[in-house]
């Protein structure tokens, strides 16, 4: 098995049942996983759950890691999958949220005027919570994580066309929600 990245030995040891090696993998990659998951989690408890669920799946499926791509890429794909599953589950449970906060004005970030970055994120979070899970996943990776269409396609396992369509639809919906002319 060819494992090209620097944690190759750790991956091999973890596959062989070495708990210390797996703990070291978690230590090295937790930042990547938690940063992606944080874009979808509503609070720290949910972030903890998403992070743990990701590493439990990694532990379970470690033997299926072929090693033809870096371990980090494989891990990111699993993280995105876990987040997508969580979004779909949440969509079933969640009722509509209030959009009163969306009336807040927005300013040019280069001038530093207007709402803070935290407020902008909160407003976006609220608007994005109304999107379909696929649309939200794509627009988050595309706009907030600053990934290319190709990267998003690789992470989600969807075609580039599907990613572009989803991103376009998500933008249209967000413009409606934030602009206040939601036709629903």
């Amino acid at each position, binding site marked *: 098995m060819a494992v090209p990245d620097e944690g190759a030995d750790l991956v091999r040891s973890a596959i062989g049942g070495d708990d210390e090696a797996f703990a070291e993998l978690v230590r090295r990659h*937790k930042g990547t996983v938690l940063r992606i998951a944080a874009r979808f989690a509503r609070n720290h408890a949910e*972030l903890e759950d998403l992070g743990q669920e990701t590493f439990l799946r990694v532990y379970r499926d470690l033997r299926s890691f072929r090693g033809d791509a870096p371990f980090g890429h494989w891990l990111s794909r699993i993280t995105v999958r876990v987040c997508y599953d969580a979004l779909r589950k949440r969509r079933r449970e969640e009722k509509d949220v209030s959009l009163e906060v969306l009336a807040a004005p927005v300013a040019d970030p280069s001038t530093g005027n207007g709402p803070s970055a935290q407020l902008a994120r909160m407003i976006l979070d609220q608007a994005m919570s109304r999107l379909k899970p696929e649309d939200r996943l794509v627009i988050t990776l595309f706009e907030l994580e600053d990934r290319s269409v190709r990267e998003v396609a690789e992470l989600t396992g969807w075609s580039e066309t599907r990613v572009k369509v989803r991103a376009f639809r998500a933008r249209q919906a967000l413009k409606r929600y934030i602009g206040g002319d939601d036709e629903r």
Partner: protein
Amino acid sequence: MNDKRHDRRDVELDRYFALARQAPPDISGVERNFETRVMARIREGREPWYALAWRLAPVFLALTILLAGWSLSYSSPAHPADPVTMLASGTQEVALLDYLTGE
């Protein structure tokens, strides 16, 4: 007019995204000792063989009781082994043959 409004909304949305990118979510609280908690959950999910054996103990016990009951209810022989009884029951020839041949 409508196009202009859409352009304005695109710009506005991009501003939201730009601002949101400036404030990456804080993960420091969750990151602390995260690996310890993950490993604890992994160990929790594993079950030693003796724990499984203990969990199956009631099943084994029930099975033993069933088998014991079954063997007791079917243990009375169709042909009594004692030759005297067999002779009395009218199966003399067969019994005698069995007795002599040791079957």
